[in-house]
């Protein structure tokens, strides 16, 4: 038996054995703690309910609303075209395809801020960007959009404009709701991120 072959064979086995000994690949690109700290303190990670209402009315295709409440609450009431991912299932592999889609802005909302904030931190840790929280959650939504409060006489023009907008938005949302219990699909489909934008491959 040629010495060379023996040498090669041993080399090959060592290489393969080496594979077993190296640590597991990281699946997520972990965000650095400093970056996370910085991002947390940015107020730009919040969007107001007015902004969300605006985006829905305009049919903004980059909006991806994620409702992190339990499925029961989602079915009872939810925002137009929102997807339901209960907070405790956020890291499940099935749902990962909703994140990391180019140009899409993910907005978390819950009844209030707390759960949505937690979702935000978790997704930032998983390395996703373009993640936002709807400030005040659904409670704020109901208070401002659905039951807008008329500003006092002495309030500024801006506040009146805002009020007009909210009244309009209210009509848009509650009106649509009456006609189509499906929460008025404006035809924006949230597309799951395609696995492997890669090759078609094969023979």
């Amino acid at each position, binding site marked *: 038996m040629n010495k060379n072959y023996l040498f090669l064979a041993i080399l090959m086995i060592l290489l393969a054995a080496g*594979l077993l000994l190296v640590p597991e*690949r990281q699946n997520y690109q972990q965000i650095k703690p400093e970056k996370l700290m910085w991002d947390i303190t940015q107020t730009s990670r919040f969007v107001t309910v007015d902004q969300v209402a605006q985006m829905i009315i305009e049919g903004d295709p980059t909006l991806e609303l994620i409702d992190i409440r339990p499925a029961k609450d989602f079915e009872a009431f939810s925002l137009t075209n929102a997807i339901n991912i209960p907070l405790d299932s956020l890291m499940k592999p099935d749902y990962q395809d909703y994140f990391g889609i180019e140009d899409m802005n993910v907005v978390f909302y819950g009844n209030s801020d707390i759960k949505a904030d937690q979702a935000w931190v978790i997704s930032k840790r998983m390395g996703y960007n373009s993640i936002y929280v709807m400030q005040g959650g659904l409670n704020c939504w109901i208070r401002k959009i659905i039951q807008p409060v008329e500003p006092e006489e002495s309030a500024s023009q801006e506040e009146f404009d805002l009020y007009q907008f909210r009244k309009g938005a209210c009509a848009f949302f509650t009106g649509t709701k009456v006609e189509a219990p499906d929460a008025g699909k404006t035809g924006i489909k949230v597309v799951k991120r395609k696995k492997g934008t890669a*090759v*078609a491959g*094969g023979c």
Partner: protein
Amino acid sequence: MGPLIPQEIITGQWDFVIALLIGGAFGFILEASGFSSSRNIAGVFYGYNFVVLRVFFTAMIVAMVGLLYFSYFGWIDLDLVFVLPTYLNSMLFGGFLMGLGFVIGGFCPGTSYTAVAIGKIDGIVFATGFLIGVFLFAEGFPFYEDFYTANDLGNITIGEMFGISNEWIAFLFVVVAIVAFYVTWLIEKRVRKNMTEYKFE
């Protein structure tokens, strides 16, 4: 870093030039190793020439181990690499037919191209037969379309199928390969001693 083309690091224009080059190297290596001769290829089934096993198995373990190492070093993103999807029923049947075709025809498509290139008529006939076979399949496709797509397990890897990590699978393959090389070396010596009329092309 890799794979380069799917991530547009190399633009689509180069796509086909690279295909030509890779194909060229493929054909060269095949022919140089002796795969342009059907008798060399069929030898693996009868024990007088194990070149198929040697080249095939070596290439497979080198590529397998290499891929896993590349992935570990972050040089390649395995999610973007094409993994052949598994259609259980269809593939079992296909493998069966191909096994028969292999032992009767003594070629496979890639090697038949090299045989044609050096002037082997049986290579040409094989390639033509292959073409006819593909045509027949496509014509009859409506009849077995369901069978064709039955049992789609998706892009499942061997490790996922058996619940073992892919690194172990690679290691197993290497060990099996080395053992196979040794055993076939012994077998080949024995068989050739008894085949006095075996002559090379």
